[in-house]
């Protein structure tokens, strides 16, 4: 294999891991490359042994993350999992569904149950879309979020029935107002245990007397409308399961799901070639029995996804950016005082975990970035990657040092840092800026370098600059 081919394979694998995960260290990339692209795709799609920081360890040192009473601690708990998992797509798909099937702490005041929902996304987020929608319809956080506890036989509340069609499956224009009402009738009686007590606690944000009480699903037969319903052209004595069955087989649902997956995992904007890939994903959706895993396999193995045109075609979301930087830097691998500040960082950047702004989740793509947020984003990643005490940064320094018996020229320093931090490809203008900076101090000699010495600081400063580049903000 030529070195050009090796470089291309490495760049492709890094691209896959940025999309199906949160990026990868060089050591991780080497492991993935040894397996081969399609085998890695299959591994990612079949998470089995995440080896994330164990719950008992988190709970012992962070009792607030055992109780999960407030938003900050609960976000930190999920952050630990994302930072330390060996099955990154399991977390990435949970993050995807959290944005699409959004529920928010501000109304619920029940983070434990929201995190149970995130567990459900891990458990079912790559399986059948039909099964996922059914679990969602029984998820107590979703039911309270969209007021289905107020959806009664003879007095429907349409909120859940409407969003199920509009935001979670088919999209506006593909159903009628009558479908909304009839679907809502089918979900009467789908509520949470002790709904009245839990609703008043949520409304008052009551933590008394003994902190939160988590939620579970309850079906109240006596409150269910057993009458005949007509939904999307079909008529019957439908319950909620029947409604989900009908939704899952609609072409509009296939288009909705595949487009949202495409935009999250491939490109913010759908090009003509991208449209063809979505068509292939829709075919897989039906061929596989609505299997999300199969749909994503089609995407990741498509020539479109592997092509240069898709690289850096997405703006990293704040959580992707933060988690990616921490994984690369190797920080927060064990319980650490101050982890909750990381959660706050994602909030400052516009993505507060477990607290999306509306039922529509977050507006993604270029809307992640404005001038104020950009400063937060750059400062965070620059601080992480410029810290030469971080294990991941030390690994980069050691690799730079091990690969050269002589000094590194400014060009070599820049190119090798760009390689080891990604590899990422930057514009000529960015590269010229980086080289210009490196030239101010001349060649870099890392022989006999010591932790934190001037030579290492120069590497840290270069990594800090690379992390500040436009390209590092993109996936």
């Amino acid at each position, binding site marked *: 294999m030529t070195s050009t081919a090796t470089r291309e394979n490495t760049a492709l694998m890094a691209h896959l891991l940025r999309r199906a995960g949160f990026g990868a260290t060089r050591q991780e990339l080497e492991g993935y490359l040894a397996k081969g692209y399609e085998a890695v795709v299959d591994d990612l799609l079949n998470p089995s042994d995440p080896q994330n920081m164990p*719950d*008992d360890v988190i*709970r*012992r*040192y962070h*009792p*607030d993350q*055992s*109780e999960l*009473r*407030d938003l*900050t*601690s609960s976000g930190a708990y999920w952050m630990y999992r994302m930072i330390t998992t060996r099955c990154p797509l399991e977390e990435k798909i949970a993050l995807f569904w959290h944005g699409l099937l959004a529920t928010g702490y501000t109304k619920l005041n029940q983070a*434990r149950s929201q995190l*149970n929902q995130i*567990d*459900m996304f891990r*458990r079912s987020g790559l399986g059948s879309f039909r099964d996922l929608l059914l679990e969602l319809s029984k998820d107590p956080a979703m039911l309270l979020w969209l007021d289905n506890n107020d959806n009664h036989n003879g007095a429907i509340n349409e909120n859940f029935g409407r969003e199920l069609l509009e935001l979670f499956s088919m999209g506006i224009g593909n159903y009628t107002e009558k479908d909304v009402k009839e679907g809502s009738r089918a979900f009467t009686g789908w509520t949470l*245990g*002790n709904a*009245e*007590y839990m609703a*008043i*606690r949520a409304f*008052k944000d*009551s*933590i*008394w*007397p*003994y*902190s*939160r*009480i*988590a*939620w*579970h*699903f309850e079906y109240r037969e006596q409150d269910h409308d057993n009458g005949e319903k007509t939904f999307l052209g079909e008529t019957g004595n439908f319950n909620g399961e029947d409604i989900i069955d009908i939704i899952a087989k609609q072409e509009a649902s296939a288009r909705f799901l595949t487009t949202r997956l495409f935009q999250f995992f491939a490109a913010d904007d759908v090009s003509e070639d991208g449209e063809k890939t979505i068509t292939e994903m829709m075919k897989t959706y039906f061929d596989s029995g609505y299997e999300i895993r199969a749909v994503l396999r089609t995407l990741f193995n498509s020539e479109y996804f592997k092509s240069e045109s898709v690289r850096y075609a997405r703006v990293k979301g704040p959580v992707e950016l933060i988690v990616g930087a921490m994984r690369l830097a190797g920080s927060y691998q064990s319980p650490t*005082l*101050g982890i*909750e500040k990381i959660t706050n960082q994602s909030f400052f950047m516009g993505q507060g975990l477990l607290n999306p702004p509306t039922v529509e989740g977050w507006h993604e793509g270029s809307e992640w970035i404005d001038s104020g947020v950009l400063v937060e984003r750059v400062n965070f990643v620059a601080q992480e990657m410029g810290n030469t005490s971080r294990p991941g940064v030390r690994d980069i320094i050691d690799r730079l040092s091990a690969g050269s018996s002589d000094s590194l020229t400014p060009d070599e320093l820049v190119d090798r840092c760009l390689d080891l931090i990604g590899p990422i490809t930057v514009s000529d203008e960015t590269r010229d800026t980086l080289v210009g900076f490196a030239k101010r101090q001349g060649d870099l000699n890392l022989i006999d370098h010591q932790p934190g010495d001037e030579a290492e600081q120069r590497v840290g400063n270069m990594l800090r600059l690379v992390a500040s580049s436009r390209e590092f903000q993109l996936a």
Partner: protein
Amino acid sequence: MAIQTGSKTIQIDYLKTIGIVNNGLNGRGFTSPYDLAVHKDGRIFVINRCDPLRSSAVRVGICNLDEDYLSEFGYGNGAGDGQMVWPVALAFDSKNRVFLTDEHNQRISIYDDSGKFLEKWGTAGSAEGELNGPAGIALDKEDNVYVVDQHNHRVQKFTNDGKYILGWGKLGSGPGEFDTPWGLAVDAEGDVYVADWRNDRIQKFSGDGQFLASYGESGQGEGQFQRPASVAVDDEGFIYVADWGNERVQILGPDGSFQVLLQGEATVSKWADDYFASNPEEKVERDNANLMPELPDHLSSPYHVSSQTESYFWGPVSVSLDGAGRLYVTETNRHRFQVYQKQ
């Protein structure tokens, strides 16, 4: 419930619940209570480990069995004299001085029983007498201090003023080895019991560190443990274990045999009663609710059951005894402790 073990019988009954979540920075109630110790005069000293939003209020709160909130002391969050960051456990010596471990500050802080800071000792490290995550603490009749040195996977014994005497243990799962131990207790004979947290067992040693016995194994059955956090031993030799990962307390006989399982049966404390008196609409719905729900399979782990069943222990981090046969179970997730009376 009464249970015969050898020539001894244990009967223990639920007495009451004390506590309420404290959402502020001081005053009545608890914020992530992590351990308690009962003064000879009956006052109950409770560590409030606090959460990150209230970390500046890390402190010890003091109440009594009649649920009077008496006072509290703390010197803020930090490494200065008297300050705490991540306090773990506390114990009294014979002079009623409070010895408190802090796993972040790597030291023992000592206060008098009015909360006045007296002194501190402890140096971070792994050499003899140094500490890496001091956790459980107990004193023997001579006021020697035993400290669980969790990240060094050992127990160390000090004089009352902090001079190293001896230590034992290393990382492992064999007899006398530990994996991140947490709590410890000294019985009337001077033997030492250690909650060997990540080995899911209790180990018993002589006061000079000779291995004597090991009780329990991983599991959810009787006599099995999941991450035991704390251990206490009464005058008759009954062993009380906070089976933290199983969200329960188990009582073993002096020979280590299983005797009693407690799951928790919390009732409304006096402070909670006050809350409901001023929030009657919430009380009405609470009275109509089923607070002992049946749960779906995916929520059937002890942790999830306790998160949904308010009367059960949730986060039982500590078991403590007083001189009157009472057992106190501190629940960090529920900001309270449940009291049982041994008959």
